[in-house]
């Protein structure tokens, strides 16, 4: 009687603590395959940390970047992953419209993918900065953000908002599931629908970051934002198709083949738009040649010792076209292994096209006409692989907890049931 409020508060704390400990136990327990996978990721992360240490000690001179190509592999990965983060959540729209059965799962895994991708985005920007200890200079209050002029400040704002939104939804859904309580559908739906304009926003702002550079004609094109969105609608859902199958195999979660095929159909539309926009860009550059076409020349034909950009451009075109054929033809996309392969091709194609494939031609030749054959160094590649592995580890961990809760493997009830007195919840 003394304090009903305090007991309910203490109960809540106990429940939260048990939520954390059960989640940790889910991460520790697991089969041989799971442990090997996690071990492999940790090795790649450790290698990345070691490489980053080298970079911190000697400076960015350890990368392949130099003054003519002052952004490279890191910023290319950043641009790609913003797209992944955006599109994973946008998949909610068709899921809702077509009222696919496991809509909660689609939302959940989409948002988990988005959270992992945003963390990777932030890491890629951080490792690219020459003075990481000064990043607070761009924060409000403590620093001096150049708002509203710098698109980089806008990008940080929308990315962190988007992260908070997704993070809240995921933890809320999981915690409610863990507590065995019904989540508020209205709240979740409101937050998810709020995160959709933010998803479009993060990618548009990232496109604007490049489009606003008037001196780099390869980026300074109004078609870039639509292209970014179109390609994100390819890579995000493509990755989701792969992720859903892994999740389904690992957990037996009821994700229907029909839903996957439906995503394949949507991918046909997205890839059609993406290829169309690419065609429009290529036509403008090469039919009406101007001084600016030199960058498109570098993108498609290289020269001056540059071979990476044509490799990326033609590789992307090949991957995306093949994937498009599979997405388009119903008899092909209904074969799940084929659909999965096409999804992998689309994810790779978009990576090549809008990651390094967009960035590097914009910087070659440089603003004083110099052609510099940039190649990422081993340090860059190791740091990048480390960040990807970290993202994969985050995704694995969050999905594992989500699956365990969803299937009732862990819940507050089971913990309480096992030893009620220990938790002081018996009264």
């Amino acid at each position: 009687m003394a304090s009903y409020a305090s007991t309910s508060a203490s109960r809540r704390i106990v429940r939260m603590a048990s939520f954390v400990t059960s989640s940790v136990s889910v991460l520790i327990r697991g089969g041989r395959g799971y442990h090997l996978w996690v071990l492999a990721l940790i090795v790649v992360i450790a290698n990345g940390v070691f490489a980053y240490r080298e970079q911190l000690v000697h400076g960015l001179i350890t990368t392949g970047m130099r003054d003519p190509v002052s952004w490279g592999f890191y910023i290319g990965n950043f641009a790609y992953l913003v797209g992944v983060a955006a599109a994973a959540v946008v998949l909610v729209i068709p899921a809702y419209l077509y009222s696919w059965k496991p809509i909660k799962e689609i939302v959940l895994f989409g948002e988990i993918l988005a959270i992992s991708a945003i963390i990777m985005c932030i890491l890629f920007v951080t490792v690219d900065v020459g003075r990481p200890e000064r990043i607070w200079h761009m924060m409000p209050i403590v620093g001096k953000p150049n708002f509203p002029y710098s698109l980089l400040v806008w990008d940080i704002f929308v990315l962190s908002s988007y992260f908070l939104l997704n993070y809240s939804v995921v933890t809320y859904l999981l915690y409610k599931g863990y507590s065995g309580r019904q989540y508020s559908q209205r709240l979740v739906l409101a937050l998810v629908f709020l995160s959709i304009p933010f998803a479009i926003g993060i990618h548009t702002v990232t496109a604007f970051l490049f489009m606003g550079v008037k001196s780099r004609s390869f980026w300074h094109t109004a078609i870039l934002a639509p292209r970014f969105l179109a390609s994100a609608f390819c890579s995000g859902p493509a990755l989701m198709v792969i992720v859903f199958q892994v999740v389904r195999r690992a957990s037996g979660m009821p994700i229907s083949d029909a839903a996957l095929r439906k995503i394949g159909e949507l991918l046909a539309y997205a890839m059609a738009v993406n290829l169309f926009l690419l065609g429009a860009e290529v036509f403008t550059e090469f039919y009406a040649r101007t001084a600016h076409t030199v960058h498109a020349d570098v993108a498609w034909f290289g020269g001056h010792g540059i071979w990476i950009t044509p490799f990326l451009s033609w590789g992307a075109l090949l991957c995306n076209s093949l994937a498009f054929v599979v997405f388009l033809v119903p008899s092909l996309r209904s074969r799940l292994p084929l659909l999965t392969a096409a999804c992998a091709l689309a994810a790779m194609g978009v990576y090549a096209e809008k990651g390094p494939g967009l960035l590097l031609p914009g910087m070659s030749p440089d603003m004083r006409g110099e052609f510099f054959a940039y190649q990422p160094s081993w340090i860059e590649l190791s740091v990048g692989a480390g960040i990807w592995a970290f993202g994969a580890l985050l995704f694995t961990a969050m999905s594992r907890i989500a699956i365990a809760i969803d299937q009732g493997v862990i819940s507050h009830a089971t913990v309480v049931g096992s030893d009620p007195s220990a938790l002081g919840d018996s009264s």
Partner: protein
Amino acid sequence: MSRSNDAKDPRERRTSRRGFLKGAGAGLATLAAAPSQVSAFDFESFFQKHFRELSPAEIDEYLERLARKLREQTGKDVQMRATGPVDGVVFGYGLDVSRCIGCRRCVYACVEENNQSRDPQIQWIRVLEFERERVTRGFDLEDGDAYYDREMAPAEGKVYLPISCQHCEDSPCTNVCPTGATWTEPDGIVVIDYDWCIGCRYCMAACPYGARIFNWGEPNLPAEDVNPDMHVLGNRPRTRGVVEKCSFCIQRVRDGRYPACLEACPVGARKFGNLLDPDSEIRYLLEHKRTFVLKPELKTRPKFFYFYG
């Protein structure tokens, strides 16, 4: 002109080898005392406020701290100043491309005056060599060669175009900077606060003239080569991981002197002065010479003018 990761201009390699021998002769102690070694973490510089938010008293304290550290490291009588702009002055630069002989004396005078790193070699001025025939169609920068042999210059049938920061009136670099670490002073000079720059290099992506140079590695400046006459927003030694560029020799021009590149030019191709003074030489030249600016279509309105004919 193409260049791979490790290809270097033979001329540059020669200079850096000479610099190395000189350094070795003077003993490794000088190299160890190079001012560039200040990049190690220290709390005072970590919590340093943005330059434009410092009070006059804080500026004095800041300058004294910077100077003291550099005096210890170089053994030279370093004078660190923060001389401000003067009302009614906006600086402008003029360069007569028909006079330039491509000797690159301006480049090396700039390096010495502005305490650029000798290894890795940093240069704020880049001189491009063009075939005269091709220039009849205008300067297409991709036709230029920055790695020509200056011993052969001026070569028959060649034209030279030096490029450095254009100090644009509408400068893309200052717009994109996420931290406001670079800005345009009232006298038109685009400056950088080296203690506020985070090294994101967005300004380098935005600059249409490739004028901004990044400290990819630890800058090395032998103590005996240090120019002790310093401006806090100009030629004080930089640290690793920040961007730098031409400041019109802010440490000189705000004291009524000419930029070092102008004084080094043997043919008088370089002119400098106050654009707001109708009687200045630069105004006379702008009114009587045929003039162009680089990349006028971008509307950056450079304050660096080229004369020709």
